[in-house]
């Protein structure tokens, strides 16, 4: 596979937040709170996913080992077997399916524990549904990209990033970025076509896991936009209301 075109191809595939993936993506939701589960199931199915549901840890483990899923979303506190034990069990059995842990426990320690148990991402309840969707997409993308060689160039429309030379250019013109702006743009490009939320950016670019009270990320994004989109007829960085940001080529996805 041509690694150079990898990101661009991904960008053209995922057109919007709620875009239906071209092959059916199969998710398993393990959640004992029936009402919350119904709400999540409905939302995920509306977003184009095929979702199975298990309402306790044992049933969840059984389903997770019986059939092949693209992603498992599990609550942390479950009857019969808690979410973390379930993840450990799966990992011990060699099941590498990405797991997103949902938890009402949100302190730094809980989070670290959740990820150490083998979870791939950790989301504290209550969360915005858009946050969950964005993280699901990011995890799905990560697991499909993990098998390829890491790309050395990222590209959306006429915006190109050379990861080796640490250079960014748009329409052949070089763009000057600070180190942090470069990382921010790199994160967006690696998730091209996907919505990335503010917390994902804070986590991915700054390695911070708290919830700032000020609109920090928005200010940083507006600076990046100044550099990347100003002076070009077609903006690439878009704000997704109530969710976050996405970098994509509007023309191609239309």
């Amino acid at each position: 596979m041509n690694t150079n075109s990898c990101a661009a191809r991904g960008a053209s595939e995922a057109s919007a937040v709620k875009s239906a993936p071209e092959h059916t993506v199969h998710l398993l939701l393990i959640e004992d709170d029936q009402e919350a589960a119904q709400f999540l199931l409905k939302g995920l199915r509306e977003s184009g996913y095929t979702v199975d549901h298990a309402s306790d840890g044992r049933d969840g483990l059984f389903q997770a080992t019986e059939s092949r899923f693209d992603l498992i979303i599990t609550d942390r506190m479950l009857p019969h077997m808690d979410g973390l034990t379930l993840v450990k069990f799966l990992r011990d059995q060699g099941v590498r399916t990405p797991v997103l842990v949902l938890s009402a426990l949100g302190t730094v320690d809980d989070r670290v524990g959740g990820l150490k148990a083998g979870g791939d991402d950790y989301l504290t309840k209550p969360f915005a549904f858009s946050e969950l969707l964005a993280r699901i997409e990011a995890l799905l993308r990560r697991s499909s990209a993990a098998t390829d060689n890491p790309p050395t160039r990222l590209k959306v429309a006429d915006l190109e990033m050379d990861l080796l030379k640490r250079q960014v250019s748009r329409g052949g013109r070089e763009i000057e970025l600070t180190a942090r702006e470069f990382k921010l743009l790199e994160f967006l490009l690696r998730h091209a076509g996907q919505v990335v939320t503010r917390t994902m950016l804070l986590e991915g670019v700054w390695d911070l896991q708290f919830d700032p009270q000020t609109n920090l990320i928005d200010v940083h994004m507006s600076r990046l936009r100044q550099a990347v989109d100003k002076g070009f007829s077609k903006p690439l960085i878009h704000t997704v209301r109530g969710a976050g940001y996405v970098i994509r080529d509007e023309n191609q996805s239309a």
Partner: protein
Amino acid sequence: MKISPLRTSAFRLALGYGVIFTLGVSALLGTVYLLTKTVLANEIDAVITAELEGLTDEYHRGGLAALADELTWRSDSWGRTGAVYLLVDSNLTKEGGNLAGWPPLARAPRDHWVEFFLEAHVNDELTLHPVRASVIQFPDGHRLLVGIDVNQQQRFAATFRTATLWGIGLTALAGMLAGHWLSRRLARRVQSIAETCDAIVGGDLTRRLDVSGADDEFDALGQAVNNMVARLAEKTEILRATFDSAAHDLRAPLYRLRGRLEEVARLPATEGIVRGGIESSLQELDHVQRTLATLLQIAQAESGISVVDSAPIDLSELASDMAELYEPAAKARQLTLTVHTAPHCEVKGNRQLLAQLVANLVENSLKYVPAGGRIELAALSSGSHAQLVVADNGPGIPQGDRVNALQPFVRLPAAAAASGTGLGLSLVAAIARLHHAQLALEDNGPGLRVVLDFASA
């Protein structure tokens, strides 16, 4: 719980020591007794043997007649030395000496040690005297018996034995009495400790153990327990205040949320009303959520478990990262955010929690410092200490309010207008405590200068 003195460890210990000590004393006195007895017996035997040898020599020199003369000459010895002599022929007929006849218990022994009782009149009283004697037989069939009255020695041995037994008995008794006294004393003190602890467990955190001032181990224990209870009382008070205010701070947005939702339900469902209601409801929910998250974080930090994922953190790097993160936000509020770093500012800690701490302080400054002001982040190192400083030139906190400011949910009068959960500084305080860092709120003349002092990693 009543402690029986007989079941205390002190009593068991005293009992154990008592037994060991008594055994020791028994062994010691018993040995002395046996040795003394042996020495006495040996001495008697030596005297008898010497006498016998002397008389045998007499016999060999002068024959039977000389021996008989010698015996006659010594016949009054009983009264003086308690020595007895008897010379008999082969038919046991007396031929000399101060014994009336061959003693009944020693029937015809040949070279042999014998012991028998002799009836003697002392002060007109018939008494039995134990006699130890030795007998030899001459070639012509005559036998000579030489003995000594051992009454004195046996009485001495008996007295000695009695004294020994009394000594052992008294030692054991003294041990038991001391053990009992000691254990009652200990039981009383432990009892009072147990009662006080029960009262504390029962919820009375004002109770303290008695400290006698004797500076003994009980005082050390009492002091340690008292310190523990004091810390518990302090923590309980913080938690109580936290949750009292939490209830208040969570109720307010929930109350507003409920009002908005009821309003939406009541009014005709136009697009604008519904959307507006939903958006303001989500905002209130965010507020509730943030308050809860912060409370959880404080509770965790206050619970004092050591930080998981503690790692060396370079405060300079952290300060730079945070300054870089907040610089655009500060600029948007027309504030200058600067950072000063120093080498060797490593501390052990949790990066996420420390970042949260800095964020809270910087966000406070962003909130209170008027446009045109400045915020300074700094990492300093002096000797074995590393410091993290967040300073601004805003309104600051009056001296008297600084302690209060660290308490949960305290919003100082001057800050009442600003938004926020009121938990920011108490989370800072909790994270600082968790990292064993000294937190100081200082006057920046004008403004607030928050200094965190860490012992370097």
